[in-house]
């Protein structure tokens, strides 16, 4: 089940993903998206802006260990919660 936050993140990811990958879901592995690692950083920047959160560079490094879209959603949710 994808909530609103997850849907928004998925649509951001889809803007960058290789169209051949097809539908992106929560269990989609980030490495299967055909996205360059730097582009993943760009998605993170997009999320920062969209949700008014700040991701420190060492957090960005930690993000490179995220495996699936679900992991990314959880990380953003945690940052939003921290901000609130």
């Amino acid at each position: 089940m994808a909530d609103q936050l997850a849907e928004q993140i998925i649509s951001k990811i889809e803007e960058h993903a290789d169209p051949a990958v097809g539908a992106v879901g929560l269990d989609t592995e980030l490495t299967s998206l055909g996205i360059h690692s730097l582009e993943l950083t760009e998605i993170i920047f997009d999320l920062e802006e969209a949700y008014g959160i700040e991701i420190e560079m060492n957090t960005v490094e930690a993000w490179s260990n995220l495996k699936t879209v679900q992991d990314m959603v959880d990380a953003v949710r945690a940052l939003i919660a921290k901000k609130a």
Partner: protein
Amino acid sequence: MRQRIVVTGIGGLCGLGNDAASIWNAMREGRSAIGPLASELLSDLKVRIGSEIKTLPDHGIDRKRTVTMDRFSLFAVIAAREALAQSGLQVDENNTYRVGTAVGVGVFGAETTDDNYRKVFLEGKSRPEIFTVPKIMPGAAAGQVSMNLGLRGPTFGVTSACSSSNHAFATAMDQLILGRADVMLAGGAEAPMSWGVLKSWEALRIMAADTCRPFSADRQGVVMGEGAGIAVLETYEHAKARGANILAELAGVGMSADASDIVAPTVEGPMAAMRACLADAGLNPEDVDYINAHGTGTKANDQIETVAIKQVFGESARRLSVSSTKSMHAHCLGASGALEMIACVMAMREGIVPPTANYREPDPDCDLDVTPNVARERKVRAAISNGFAFGGTNAVVAFKAA
């Protein structure tokens, strides 16, 4: 006695075609690729014409790579792949550090700059896209070629405006002669059909409204084009040892600077470069059958180039075939010399001099045999290609038949 340097593969794309064979076929037929600009983004320019690559070939390069590349780098990689495939060279762990690349680029990733200025200044985006820097840098083409083909030898960009490709051939040749590499993929790439670049050329007031008519009395000036060309260069010994098919010899280069004006050419600079090239290649004026002229279609270039050729070649100037293939592929700036390399190599291989298209009226100040409109059959033993540039940075390359 220095090592001989040979060409064992060629590749290219431009408005005339998406590979070297189609480019050459169009050149032989005297077909010009100059036409109305397609992009809506360019619709408010005074410049309405150019030579564009309307549809890219199906290159099969991963999206993960293409998102990091400006159009000029993509051109370079496509041309390099074609050239390497023709050469039959297998690059693997045994030779990867002995194969390098030098790619001439006169401008930079202008499409990326335009796109991101548009996003930031017009669309209110907070930042440019993340690959903006690595896409724009002029050295990116060489880096992308090395990454795509797994070349780990000397790899760098070369820049000198409109003579960039010829300087790339010259420096690549040096790497081979000095023993720093066994094979170099050399040439040039340019994608200048962006709003900012065309608008800037417009400001120089040297752009033709109708088409490019080099050496024709009714010429109006330069027409911009995009494309890339790459040659696989290697030492003769290396090519022979692996049983490669030798297409031509890169016999020598000649370079000079005008040291005069940033835009106005001199007669002496081009003369010095041509003389140095003949000397470097061990050619006498009578040995050369074809000159692929710089031939931009401006009055200043065409008349000065004619005088310079006459001074250097003396009596032989009258029996030479001259043509400007820019009448067909337009001025592809840093890629021009690389596309003209294809013209020279193929002219020698097929005994056909490609014409100067769009020619209408003789100009008494350009009275060499400029091969108007129709290709000419003749044996071409050696050909030189002139590259002159803003900045007065001249480079001339000489090819000999294999």
